[in-house]
Each structure stands twice: as C-alpha cells, then as structure tokens.
C-alpha cells in the first residue's frame, strides 16, 4: 500500500495533471460503474513502457506538442459535462496511477486531504446519506473553502433539495458556505428556496428585492417591484417597498408626459431650462425637486404636482419647504419663495414663518445668488442674534448689521463695520447718524 502511494505521489508531482475537476471524474466513473472490474484488470495490460507516453499526455487526452487550439475544446467540454461522453476512452488514455483510485476505498478524511492537495478524487463512492454527511463534516473541519465547495457541489447534485436543506440547517458553517456559493454563482432560485425552507423570511424578502437592481427596463422593474409588495419585510420596510413601487410608477408617467411636452416645444419652462436627465429611478427628494422646478403651479390632481407628491408620500413640512425653496430659488422666483413662508394669521396680518431655521433659508438663497434686498429680508428674520450678525456680515447685508449693532448698543462693532462700507455711501451716512445720536446709551 505504501509503495503504491509513493508511486502515485511521484506521478502527481511530475505530471501535468494539476487540475481537479470532479465532474470530469464522476462522469467517467458513472460510465465505468459496470466495468469497474474490467478497468482494474486492464491494469495488468498497461506496462511500464507506456507510462512515458502517458505522462506526456495533456489532461485533455491529447498528446502534448500539438498546439491546443480553442476550437478543439468543444468536444472536450462535451466530454467533461454530465451528458454521456463520446468516444473518449479514458481507461486507455489514463496513466497507471489512476486505476488505483477507483479500486481503493479512501476514507472521508483521506478523500478530503486529497481534495485539498488538488488531486483528482472521485466522490461517487459516497453513496449513503451517512457517508456523504461524514464527508461534509471532514471538509468543514478542514476550513478549506475549495474543499467545502467541492463537497457541496457533489451533495447538491446527489441529494434532493429537501434533504440537503434539512441536513445543512443544523450545520451552520456548511450552510453559510452554501449560501455564499449560491450567491457567487447566481443561483437565485435555489437561494430563495433555501431561505424559504429555513424560514428566514426577511432575508428571503431582501434577496428577492435585490434582483430589481438587475432589471434595467423601467416597466419591467416596476412590475417586479410590485411582486415585492407583501413579502415578509418588517413593517417599516414594507411601507418603503410600497413607496418605491408607487414612486417608480409615477415617475414613468411623469417621464413620458414631460418628454412629450419637451419635444412639442410649447412649454416655456422646458424651453428655458431643458432637462438634463430622466427622472426615472431618482430618489424621492430629487423627484420632488424636479416637480417643484417644472410643475410647481399644478393642482393636486396631477401626478406631477408637488402637492400630490407631498400627500402621497407623506413628506414632512420641513423637507417639503426646503426642497421647494431650493427649486424656486434656482429659478429666481422670489415671489414663490416669499409665498412659502408667508402665512396669514387670524387677524389677517401676514407673518413669515418657517419649519426650518431662517439661517438655512438665507444660505440657500445666497447659494442661488439672490439679490441683496431679498437676502436682507430673510437675514432679518433669523432669531439668534449672533447668527444673524454673522450672516449679515458674511453676505454684506449692511442695513441689518447696522441695525443689529444699534440694537445691541455695540459701538465698537459699529465703528469697525464703518470701515467695511463704501466711502460716501448711504450706509456710511446711516452709521454716522447713529454714532452721533445722543439718544443711544452705548455699552462700549
């Protein structure tokens, strides 16, 4: 036994047979099942002289020295697939060492050792469930990913789905490996079946949902998203999935409509600001911005109106106001901006209020190059005095600075600011008037 092993080691270390491909072997073995004994007896006919020739045979069975061309591998892959092979005669083309494989009974642990070293090894001999599970256990304890994968491929092929799942359910490491393997080869169907079996409902739902990223056509994607609704997501996520579907549904309608409007060339907003991209698959907030930009005045009834979006997706006031502000500011529609913040109180007086701090409003206005008068008005509304002063100085809202300094009775700061305004300007005069006023009790 030892000597045999020694011969084999030598063979393996010197030949070109470096690959291990299990289907390869399994296929031949299934052919040779009946003729196992015949194969063994062939050993006697193969003498040492032939070894030289055999060693120079490439693993495809063709002698080395001939250029291996891609075209000739068609028949090769046939030979190696699970379908019955052609006239390939492995028993004669195989080197002496090979036969010993078929006749010896390698234990699971030995088999796994051989697999790890990359040696050709048949797994077909492990017929009973118990044998197979033992093989798996050995593979797992070895921690070698390739070996575990090899065994799993074999089990996947030779066990029914139910038994495979049932056995793996209690073998965490192998289970995780199988999941990873199925993801790697993209076997979505089996993966979903597995999650269903394991009652890992949320994972099942998410794995199914993930597929939408591979669907490019918007209509098809929309239909797919529809199938995701009602899957066992968490309550929160279910709502989001529903929103995702609804959003894409709306976007398809808006996109079709707007493209039509744009090409018709009659609508001013599209003429002045041609669209740079399609609205499809954009996030909700981006869609709202788009809607505030191109469809601001539309009534609630249309899918493209901002109010409709707000209602359908329950967009909070804060987010709505911010987005609308950004869109109208970009269009320099200052009246619209005004209207966003103006409310009439019960006495009929108008007052400005914002669900976001006015400092944010100022920043957004400044980013869109709002004229100083507009900026000034909103800077004035900032509640925190320090912030107000900071922003006013930053954006050169002179009147606000002056007035605030006066209110704070801060003479020094007012003096300092005087040097920043233009000589002889109205602001300078105003500052001088205030500085000279006898009515103010300066604190510094």
């Amino acid at each position, binding site marked *: 036994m030892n000597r045999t092993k020694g011969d084999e080691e030598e063979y393996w270390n010197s030949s*070109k047979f470096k690959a291990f491909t299990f289907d390869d072997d399994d296929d031949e073995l299934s052919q040779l099942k009946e003729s196992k004994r015949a194969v063994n007896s062939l050993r006697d006919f193969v003498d040492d002289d032939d070894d030289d020739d055999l060693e120079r045979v490439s693993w495809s069975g063709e002698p080395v020295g001939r250029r*291996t061309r*891609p075209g000739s591998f068609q028949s090769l892959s046939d030979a190696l697939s699970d379908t019955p092979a052609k006239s390939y005669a492995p028993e004669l083309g195989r080197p002496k060492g090979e036969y010993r494989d078929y006749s010896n009974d390698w234990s699971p642990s030995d088999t796994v050792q051989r697999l790890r070293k990359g040696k050709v090894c048949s797994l077909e001999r492990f017929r009973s469930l118990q044998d197979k599970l033992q093989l798996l256990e050995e593979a797992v304890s070895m*921690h070698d990913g390739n070996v575990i994968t090899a065994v799993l491929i074999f089990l996947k092929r030779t066990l029914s789905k139910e038994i495979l799942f049932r056995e793996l359910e209690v073998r965490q490491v192998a289970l*995780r490996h199988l999941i990873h393997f199925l993801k790697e*080869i993209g076997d979505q169907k089996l993966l979903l079946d597995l999650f269903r079996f394991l009652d890992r409902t949320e994972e099942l739902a998410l794995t199914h949902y993930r597929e939408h990223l591979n669907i490019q056509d918007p209509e098809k994607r929309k239909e797919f998203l529809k199938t995701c609704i009602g899957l066992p997501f968490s309550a929160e996520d279910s709502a989001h999935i529903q929103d995702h579907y609804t959003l894409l549904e709306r976007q398809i309608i808006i996109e079709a409509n707007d493209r039509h409007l744009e090409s018709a060339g009659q609508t001013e907003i599209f003429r002045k600001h041609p669209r740079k991209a399609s609205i499809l698959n954009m996030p909700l907030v981006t869609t709202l911005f788009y809607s505030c930009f191109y469809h601001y005045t539309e009534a609630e009834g249309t899918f493209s109106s901002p109010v409709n979006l707000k209602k359908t997706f329950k*967009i909070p006031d804060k987010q709505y106001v911010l987005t609308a502000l950004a869109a109208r500011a970009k269009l320099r529609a200052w009246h619209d901006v005004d209207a966003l913040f103006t409310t009439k109180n019960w006495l009929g007086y108008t007052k400005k209020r914002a669900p976001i701090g006015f400092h944010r409003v100022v920043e957004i206005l400044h980013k869109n190059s709002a004229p100083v008068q507009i900026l000034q008005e909103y800077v004035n509304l900032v509640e925190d005095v320090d912030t107000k002063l900071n922003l006013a100085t930053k954006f050169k809202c002179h009147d606000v600075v002056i007035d605030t300094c006066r209110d704070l009775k801060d003479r020094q700061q007012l003096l300092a600011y005087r040097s920043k305004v233009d000589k002889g300007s109205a602001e300078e005069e105003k500052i001088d008037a205030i500085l000279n006023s006898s009515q103010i009790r300066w604190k510094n």
Partner: protein
Amino acid sequence: MATHLSYGRVNLNVLREAVRRELREFLDKCAGSKAIVWDEYLTGPFGLIAQYSLLKEHEVEKMFTLKGSRLPAADVKNIIFVVRPRLELMDIISENVLSEDRRGPARDFHILFVPRRSLLCEQRLKDLGVLGSFIHREEYSLDLIPFDGDLLSMESEGAFKECYLESDQTSLYHAAKGLMTLQALYGTIPQIFGKGECARQVANMMIRMKREFTGSQNSIFPVFDNLLLLDRNVDLLTPLATQLTYEGLIDEIYGIQNSYVKLPPEKFAPKKQGDGGKDLPTEAKKLQLNSAEELYAEIRDKNFNAVGSVLSKKAKVISAAFEERHNAKTVGEIKQFVSQLPHMQAARGSLANHTSIAELIKDVTTSEDFFDKLTVEQEFMSGIDTDKVNSYIEDCIAQKHPLIKVLRLVCLQSVCNSGLKQKVLDYYKREILQTYGYEHILTLHNLEKTGLLKPQTGGRNTYPTIRKTLRLWMDDVNEQNPTDISYVYSGYAPLSVRLAQLLSRPGWRSIEEVLRILPGPHFEERQPLPTGLQKKRQPGENRVTLIFFLGGVTFAEIAALRFLSQLEDGGRSKETYR
C-alpha cells in the same frame, strides 16, 4: 532590497525575499519570452513585492491590463494571466483566449491565481471551454505583503464583508495560512492571545495546521513573543471616527492605496519663471508614502496640529544647510558640501511635497463643515446626546452630502449608544431612503447585520461602561507632546489599541467585565517550543508583539500602536487584514 523594511525589530525583507523567490520560480517555469496580463487590483500589491526590473530579468517583455475582447499583439512565447479567483474575471480571460488570432504565431497560456486557486473559477473556465488551454495553472499564495518595517497587510478588500456580514471563513483561512508562512520564516510564536469569534477560528486553524506539519520541527529562533488576534467588530467605533493624524487625514481626504496617494497636480507643478501657468499638469501627482522618506517617518503619526511646527523647523534646518555653501572655503570643505547636496536636495524636495500636502489638508480641516462634523463626532464619543436625532446629521442629509459621510455619522451614534432607539433609527432610515433612494434598504439591512447601525435591544446602553473603564475619552489631550494614545483622535483613545495596551500591562484579567460586554470570546493559547529555542529575555529587552486585525485597521490605530511602542520601548509589529 527595500531598505525601509529592515528598520524595525523584525526584518521583513526576509519575507519579501521569500515571496519574490516564489514568483521567480513560476516565471521561469513558463520558459521563454512572456507577457503578463494583470488583474488591475493586483498591480498595487505586486508593486510592493517586485518592480518591473525583476520581471524583466525573467523575460517578461510586455505587461497588459486584463480587459475584454482580444489580447493586444505581442511577439512573446507565453501569456501569463495573474488574477484573483473571481468568476467575472474568468469570463474576461476566456474571451481573451477564444479570440486569439490563429493566424499569428501560437502562444502558450498560463494562469496564476492569487492568492489561491478556486474550484468555482476552474469550473467556470471549463464551462467556457478554455480550461485546457492553460499549460501551467497554479496559485501564488501572496498572503502577507510587507508595507513598511513594522506593517504587513493582506489587502483583502472583501474581508470585513465576508467575515462579519456573510460569516464566510475563507479569508480567515488565508489569514491562518499567512501566519503559518510567517512562522516558517520567523519562528513559532509561543503565545497567542485573541478576542472575537474570528480570532478564535484563526487560532484554531493555526493550531490544526501546525499539527499537520509534525515531523519537521521549526528550528528558527522565534522573533515574535506574542500574537494578538483582534476581530474588527470588537471595535467598530474607531474606523467610523475621522482620523486626525497626518497620515490618517491624507487617507481620509485622498485615500492611500498600497502606500501611494494621488494628489491634485496644481499644487505640485514646478514653479518655472516666466511660464505664467500654461501647461499645468493634468494628471494627478502620485507619491509614495513610507518610512524610507525621513521627513514622512517623522510626521506621519503626529496629530495634524503638531505637523506645522515640525515643517517650519525643518525648513530652517534645510535653509541653514544650504547656506553652508558660503562657509565652504577650502577645496575639502567644498567637496564635502557637494557630496551632501543630493541628500539635501532630496530633503528639500520632501519638505516641499509635505508642505503642499499639509496646505491641502489645512484647507479641509479649517472649513466650517469639518469643524461641525468633528464636534458632533466628539460629542457622540464622549457620550453626549447619543439618544436623539442629531440636527447636523439631518442637515447633511437635507443637503445631500455624500452618503458615506452620513452613514459614518449615524453608525457612530449607534455604536456609542449600543444601538439607536427605534424611533430615532426609523427617522434616520426614512430620511436616508427618501434622499438617496429606496434601494438603500439593502444597505441599511447590511449595516444592521454587522452591528454598525441597529436598534437598541435589551434597553441598556453599555458604551458608557466601556468608555469609562477603558478610559476611551480623555479630556486633557496634548496634541503637541502626547502622553496618551488618545492624541490620534484628539481625545478618543482607539478601543482596539487600548485593549492591546492593557493586555501587555497589567493584563486582561483587570478588565474581565468589559471583555464580557465586547463581542466574541477572549482566549490565550500556548504553542510549545522545542527546548533550546525557548526565549529568555535580556533585562531591558522588550517583547515583540504581532497584532493582527481581522477585518482592517486605520492609520490612526497604527500611529497609536507605534506611540505605545515608543512608550514601552517594546517592539510591535502590526498586521492588518483588509
């Protein structure tokens, strides 16, 4: 030879040479002229092992990047594909092989899998009908790559995801193999400490692998005294915070890959007189960053606020050195001055580069947004207001700042609160999904699975206990002359490094309670050494510890470890596993 690898307590050139030898052997196996087709991802790590000159010595005449369709023309006898074992790359390779021009001279194909072969990949090649085209099909186990005299990395980009999201052990297997290689070259490591599930697995694999190699006892005198294996998920906090060391900030802003950084070229354009700024370089300026550069070694681990003074002092020293030319009167003195010129010029060039980089960084760190972000981070890390929705984070989402920035902050808040209150979590999730897209349901789910962003279960926030016991937040931090590792985050001491610090003195028994709160088991193993190899430390000689982060490490943590080394005057080699 890479001289900077020999500087530390452990001569990593030994490893580098061993790895180079294996590469040479494979190249020689494919006799004759050759062209290498590279998986782009590998060119970086390989660049640390072998330059083109080495490859040329072994008849590598051309190099190409792996791309679809046909291979470029090259009059070589062999084509070698050097790739990671990834299925999608197999598809590209088969395209290359199948579209080979049969009219041209025949070429031999070979494939080198780095770091391991994969059954699935070979299966794929077979399915595509090209497996038999390869004459030599081997694996090159490039597990640990030396980056610097005290730093090794596996550069395994998917490791964290595999280990903590998918619970897949393949990367751990590679880690164990890498450690076995190290032990073969540097001797068996007598003591192994660890914290975390993955650490336990790696230790088990190492012990098992050692058993399988019985017969050939390792006779090399051990260089390492200890190995500390740490799961990344024992400390998820540190990688989320913004690093504040010089090297850390370079990485945060520009990204350091395989010791290289790409910088905006405008700052580095040579100032030619009278050119007026025409012909500005458009390609990014690529710089190599390692301890071979004297100035860099000096400033890389300092808190950024302490870098300026070093640079200005250096400027004075270099100016003075150049001024010396006026003092050189005799021929001998002039000769001496001239001989030192190259060194001085290199120093001056180095100073110029780092002054420019420091300026670039300063533009970022002095911005209002950076200050606001840092304030929020520090509030979280010191335990303030971690249980409510944070308005700065809300603003970032509203202004659609990069998603990664937002996620780092919400995850930081979650980790510092042992999970967020359901209401707070739902609020953030909603804002994120509405602003960045619903597909991020998947992103958020993944984050929850790894423990980075999750709801609070059990109702108790254990972070304050951990923070107080391990002294993670230090109010009185000295950035210029630090006395504690917390300087690397200007107040926060990296949890992982604190654990390493406490392990060496006074030992983990003093923090049993905290260790039990942190995820995963902690353990200690001893590997027996043959008598005669047992180490007796000389008085004053400190232990050499190898610290292995399973799942990645930050530059700030490396800086903190180097600082500890200096404090204790002990040698620490760090290994990362990214």
